């Protein structure tokens, strides 16, 4: 998948655990884990808004696009 989710990087920078973040933004730890591990198929704007608000970052800090060919290299 060309879209990489760097949520774990931002969580480490802000020193917040998965359970704490999920409790603050109103998403279950299981769903947040799906997002963190890159298994999610889509993310709602409302979820992205809540994450960026809590972590004090931009969507581009969480989501990154990498070309498929470069990813395989």
């Amino acid at each position, binding site marked *: 998948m060309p879209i990489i989710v760097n949520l774990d990087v931002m969580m480490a920078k802000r020193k917040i655990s998965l359970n704490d973040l999920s409790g603050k933004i109103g*998403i279950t730890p299981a*769903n947040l884990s*799906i997002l963190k591990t890159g*298994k*999610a*198929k*889509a*993310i*709602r704007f409302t979820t992205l808004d809540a994450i960026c608000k809590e972590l004090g970052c931009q969507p581009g800090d969480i989501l990154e696009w990498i070309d498929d060919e470069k990813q395989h290299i």
Partner: protein
Amino acid sequence: MKNIKFKSIISIALVCYIIFIASIFVDELEDMKVGFLQGKNAASRLINDEQGSDTFYISVAPKVSVLNFPETMENIKCNEEIKIRYYKMKVMQPIGLKLNLRNKIYRVICTFLAFVVYAVFVFIPFQFYGLMKTLQKEIFFDVKNKKRFINIGAALGIAYWAIFLANYLSFQISNSLFEFKDYVIIKEHTNVIWMLLSLVTLIIAEMISRGIKLREEQDLTI
């Protein structure tokens, strides 16, 4: 409340299905009686070395034109002869009219195909029951439901082709044994509704498959 509604639907569906199956048997009741009595008498005929009889079911069409009514019958209501035409016949022939090996094989195949169709009639309600159980749990886009619809569609398709093949083989048997002055023997028509139902069910299975993918995407949308 939901349980009562589900049980009501299942009961109604079951009653409708039983009526449908019973109506088929009622339509064919006379033929079943003939077959039963011939089979019952077969044993005593073997013992007493007697000639028995066999019944053939033949579909016919007029030789000359569709406007040809070659037979006559008395209408006792007004005491006059009226012209009639047969489109189906039940012919009783002595067993002395021996079947050759090919026709005997065809008859065995027809018997087997009849069992296939009966198996389909038994198989389909079980699939529907499983479907209704999952619907009660408000689960529709499920892999098991997709498989059930595929099974039902395949079973209906198999039933259609089994009936089609049985009709063709019966036609071959009748054509080799009989020839009539005013009629030509034709193959009995197989109701296309079986094939249409099969196709519709398979299309529903494909729709469920797409629904399953959408549901999985929805589940993985955070």
